């Protein structure tokens, strides 16, 4: 058999003797591009810096694969298992199996209901929704539309976060519908956060409801799908669209004036916080950073947590995301966007 550092994602500093290995399972690459690009990058960097070996894998939306990866990590002897669940059920099964093998567990970004993970690191997801709702309200108010019709493109019905996001933005929008400032328009879930399906779903919403004046899209991918349809009907810019994740595409859409806002979740901070916990656990230390608690709504248990705050991003604040190092100026300010970048104060 080969050396321990076989996996491509394993840390370089296998020199550190005391620390055990850490396993990380990410959910997919479809719900958001972050899982394929940002999270692995930041997590890997953090673990490498600490000289802790890490094995990061992505289940690609397949819960059977999710469990198989977990089995493999457990049998290869990880000390800490960190997961972003695909759903609470499989998440729980994996967490329980890990616990039986005496492995410390962390819920990353998504809370596994009744999962009983040792720690939870995330953003306040209801807050994310609230920011999206508020962002849309601001943009629509600025446009001075009267009783604008708002369409909602929700995330995947199977993602607990999507439920939380909806809870957040509906808490902002429902009163507006109730008092007649806004008109409630069509509202649909997008299976698996699938962008192509989102395009058709939105096109049909628009066809049957021509005076849609605002779109609450649950993330940047869905937002971009809606924007493509609006562009086709030459309505882009006039109908505000929301987003989430501060992707390059989303930020560019904002700069172009096609998207109203996105929610920036400082993924690097989230990754750093999570890896800090994991590194401590891997070294057999008791972490001290998880100062907050989150109440599991299902089991009622209090999970020690690190909860970060999401930030709303509009044209003016795109530069903040760049300044934070989450995306580079080069990536966002390509030739097409040079002018918009200057206008938005990105230097």
């Amino acid at each position: 058999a080969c050396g321990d550092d076989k996996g491509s994602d394993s840390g370089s500093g296998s020199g550190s003797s005391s620390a055990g290995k850490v396993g990380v399972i990410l959910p997919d690459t479809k719900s958001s591009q972050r899982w394929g690009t940002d999270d692995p990058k930041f997590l890997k960097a953090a673990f490498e810096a600490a000289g802790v070996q890490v094995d990061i894998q992505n289940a690609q939306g397949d819960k059977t694969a999710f469990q198989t990866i977990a089995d493999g990590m457990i049998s290869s002897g990880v000390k800490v298992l960190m997961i972003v669940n695909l759903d609470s059920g499989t998440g729980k099964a994996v967490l329980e199996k890990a616990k039986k093998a005496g492995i410390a567990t962390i819920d990353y970004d998504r809370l596994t209901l009744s999962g009983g993970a040792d720690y939870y690191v995330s953003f306040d997801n209801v807050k994310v929704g609230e920011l999206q709702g508020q962002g849309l309200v601001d943009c629509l108010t600025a446009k001075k539309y009267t009783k604008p019709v708002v369409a909602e493109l929700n995330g995947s019905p199977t993602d607990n976060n999507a439920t939380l996001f909806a809870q957040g933005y509906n808490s902002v929008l429902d009163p507006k519908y109730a008092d007649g400032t806004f008109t409630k328009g069509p509202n649909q879930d997008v299976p698996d956060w699938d962008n192509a399906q989102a395009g058709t779903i939105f096109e049909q919403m628009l066809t049957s409801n021509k005076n849609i004046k605002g779109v609450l899209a649950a993330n940047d991918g869905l937002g971009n799908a809606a924007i493509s349809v609006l562009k086709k009907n030459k309505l882009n810019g006039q109908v505000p669209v929301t987003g989430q994740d501060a992707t390059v595409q989303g930020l560019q859409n904002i700069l172009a004036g096609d998207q109203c806002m996105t929610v920036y979740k400082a993924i690097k901070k989230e990754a750093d916080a999570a890896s800090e916990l994991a590194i401590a656990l891997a070294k057999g230390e008791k972490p001290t950073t998880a100062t907050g608690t989150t109440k599991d709504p299902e089991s009622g248990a209090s999970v020690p947590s690190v909860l970060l705050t999401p930030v709303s991003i509009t044209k003016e604040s795109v530069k903040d995301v760049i300044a934070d190092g989450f995306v580079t100026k080069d990536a966002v300010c390509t030739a097409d966007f040079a002018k918009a970048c200057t206008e938005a104060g990105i230097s």
Partner: protein
Amino acid sequence: MSTTTTTTAGGVKVIKPTVNSYIRDYWGRVRGGDLGTLPAILGLIVLSLIFGISTDTFFSGLNFANLFNQSAQVIFIAMGLVFVLLLGEIDLSAGFASGVCGAVVAILLTNHGWEWYTAIPAALVTGLVIGFVLGFLVAKIGIPSFVVTLAAFLGFQGLLLVLLGGGTNISTRDEFFNSLNNDNLSPVWSWILTIVAIVGYAGVQLNNVRSRAKRGLVTDPMGIVAMRIGGLAALLIIGTAILSQERAINPAINSLKGVPIVVPIMGIFLVIWTFVLGRTAYGRHVYAVGGNTEAARRAGIKVDRIRISVFVIGSFMAAIGGIMAVSRASSVDPNTGGSNILLYSVGAAVIGGTSLFGGKGKVINAVIGGAVIAVIDNGMGLLGFSSGTKYIVTGLILLVAASVDALARRRAAATGNR
């Protein structure tokens, strides 16, 4: 009976058909169950009526135009799959192959600043190469196509992720490229193309009659030929007329009229592939290999080459499907070509009447079957069901549409045809 008996080919006594006898024969064949695409077309009409009645937008010009853009990816992929299915093979990777080719074009356009006229050919070449590799593995190594393309399904899914650097979405901003599956021809051009199509069809039909008549072979009665040409003309003219109306949501701001650009592209491929299958030796050989491989081999047909070629055509058309998908979304993501695209594409071909066992099918099947699927998706979208209900109803409608066809064909079986 006022028929004129003529003795032609091989002393086989034949009777020159009149319009009446032609219609009687056709009706006999239909009653005998030889229906062609009739049931799928019937299904299409019934579905349209249902959606037209239950929503007030289904029959709007805007929605009619949407249908073409929405169905483009599936129809292009399905056209290519018809060739693969004609051989009794399957291509499970067509969906992700379209994604990979879409990613290639998007990356070249956006990240490398290529022009559309170099980037699109590059994507098409990618499709050709993919098809060649698949076909080679099937024909020369002899791995069943299900396994080869299952492996490719996985492989391309991975390739797409790698190409997109783990999962970023890449936007395309090339105007021409984005217009392909979003914008429309001007009404003037729309009409010009419509007339060209009608005149072309009429020319082919009349030429056909003439060249057979010259040999003294039986020809279709002129009345029938005229009806065919008239039918097509009516269809195209009505369609173009509807699409030439203003359909913008807010005409004050911008105008939206004309035939979607993707329509003539579909039309051109439909004509080309129909020609290839029906009028060339290559097409004949595709049917032969699909009908009886051993007989084809004994007739000296290079079966392996035919086998490779259908995968090449399949992946080439998948590339075009991918280009259309990326154009429509003006972006590519790791799931472009994923989800239900593959099953819908195979479904389109099969619903249209192509057999999974080879030897039976036409390119028009892909278009009509694709239209059935697109109408269902489109109409369901207008109805605004929840995702669960939507899936269930979609399944049920598909089933009902298919059983029209099945029940008709059962009669065929009862009378011994096929």
